[in-house]
């Protein structure tokens, strides 16, 4: 039987989960605040062959699955491996290799999950490798590790980052459509106008929050 204290702790955990997820979507958006995955995002909004969801759903799923793996690597694997590494090799040098392995394992799990969908999930599976090795996946794992987030916070932040990437793609896609206007000077068309547009959105978030998590 649950008592009041237990119910409160569960409620607090749920609240914390949502607050971290919402923070990752808006205040700490992986694109607007950290500038990660912008190159791929700009290619994605240009390319009409790939739909936004076909690329972003794999990102969200990989973020979600790789988050606990990244947390385990940071909290368990690195403290253990430090004792075995030679003096000239710092453990931080292994971070990309270990975290990419977490992402690759997550990709394998997501691929199996998507296989359940049969041929309908084929476009998602085709985008899975590029989505897995997007900057925002490794970037999110690294941010969570640097901030020493708990497992719950890590999962919430990773889920929010994935949704935040989808949010950023949707906003930039709409902006990009409007920036095709002939009123935009020739030299600003394409990459320059998109960067300025993302910069203004980023400035709005910066004005709203006023600070950012130290990367």
């Amino acid at each position: 039987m649950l008592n009041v204290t237990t119910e409160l702790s569960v409620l607090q955990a749920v609240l914390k989960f949502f607050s971290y997820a919402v923070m990752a979507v808006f205040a700490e958006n992986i694109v607007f605040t950290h500038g990660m995955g912008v190159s791929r995002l700009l290619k994605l909004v240009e390319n009409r062959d790939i739909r936004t969801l076909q690329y972003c759903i794999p990102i969200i799923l990989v973020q979600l699955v790789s988050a606990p793996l990244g947390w385990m690597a940071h909290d368990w694997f690195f403290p253990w491996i430090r004792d075995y590494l030679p003096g000239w090799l710092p453990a931080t040098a292994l971070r990309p290799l270990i975290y990419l392995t977490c992402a690759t394992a997550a990709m394998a799990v997501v691929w199996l999950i998507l296989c359940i969908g049969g041929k309908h999930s084929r476009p998602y599976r085709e985008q899975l490798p590029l989505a897995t090795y997007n900057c925002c996946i490794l970037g999110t794992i690294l941010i969570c590790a640097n901030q020493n987030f708990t497992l719950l916070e890590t999962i919430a932040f990773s889920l929010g980052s994935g949704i935040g990437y989808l949010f950023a793609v949707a906003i930039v896609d709409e902006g990009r459509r409007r920036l095709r206007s002939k009123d935009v000077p020739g030299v600003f068309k394409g990459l320059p106008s998109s960067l300025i547009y993302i910069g203004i959105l980023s400035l709005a978030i910066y004005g709203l929050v006023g600070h950012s998590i130290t990367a």
Partner: protein
Amino acid sequence: MQNTPNRNKPRSGKAGKGKQQPERSQTLIIPQISPEMLESARRAAMEGKTQQEIEQAAMAAEQQRQAQTAQTTAETPKPAPKPAAPRRKTRAEAEAELDQKIHDDHLWLNNPVMMRGLGLAPVIAAAYNWNNAVMLCAAAVLLLTTTRLLAVAVCHLTGNRFRPVIYVYSAAILYIPAYCILYAWFGTDLSVLGIYLPLLAVESAIVKRMESPDLEPLGEALRRGINNTVGLCIAVLLVGFVRELLGSGMAFGNIVMETAPLPIVQQPAGGFILLGLIAAAWTGIANAYTHFKREEVRHQYAQRHH
């Protein structure tokens, strides 16, 4: 060949000899008529020869002409074959060559950062002063070309399969010695780059090639890798210098202005906007140059017609 009677009709050459003969009209078939045959046939007709005799005379004249031609050809020395002149390029070929040159120019006309939008994360979030830009450049020098070479070599072994995995793992493995070298060069200053240094392992400027299904030769990978590295370094150093100058009023770590004119450019938001403005200026200059080169090709080929 069928000759009309008007041309080869044997005319009577004896009109002035008393009784006029009735005019004959018949068709004479000669396979391949030449002026000599025609003249011979005309003479024979004037002499009042029969059709068979006329044909024989014409054929004899043709055989004689062919024998003379063969003799002349045998006697005349053949001129030495002229060396083949270099074939002039067509306008389409010249334009295609120019397009290829523009595409291959990763320093200015097709710069990975300013024109193609690659490697934006470290440029926007980490290259906010000269020191950081130099560290990022050093990391790019150590990682970009070597990753490309290693990944291409492995892709040759695997038959160009599993490209994304090969590229990012090549970068992650090469990051280990690169980090040790960078740590020896820059010491604890390296921590200022934060997560943007390990993030280079998946940065599009380094592993963008994984998206291309064409397997390039190692020599080409080396050439393009060096070009991309130089292009990336130019862009990172330029952005780092401008952001330091505007954001903190300093140049190469020395104070040059009392107050920073635009502190926001040190933040990612300002970095996006400033990079957008620099990219616009870069695009304008690059477009003007490519337009000039295209006009040059157009004029060159327009003059050839006159």
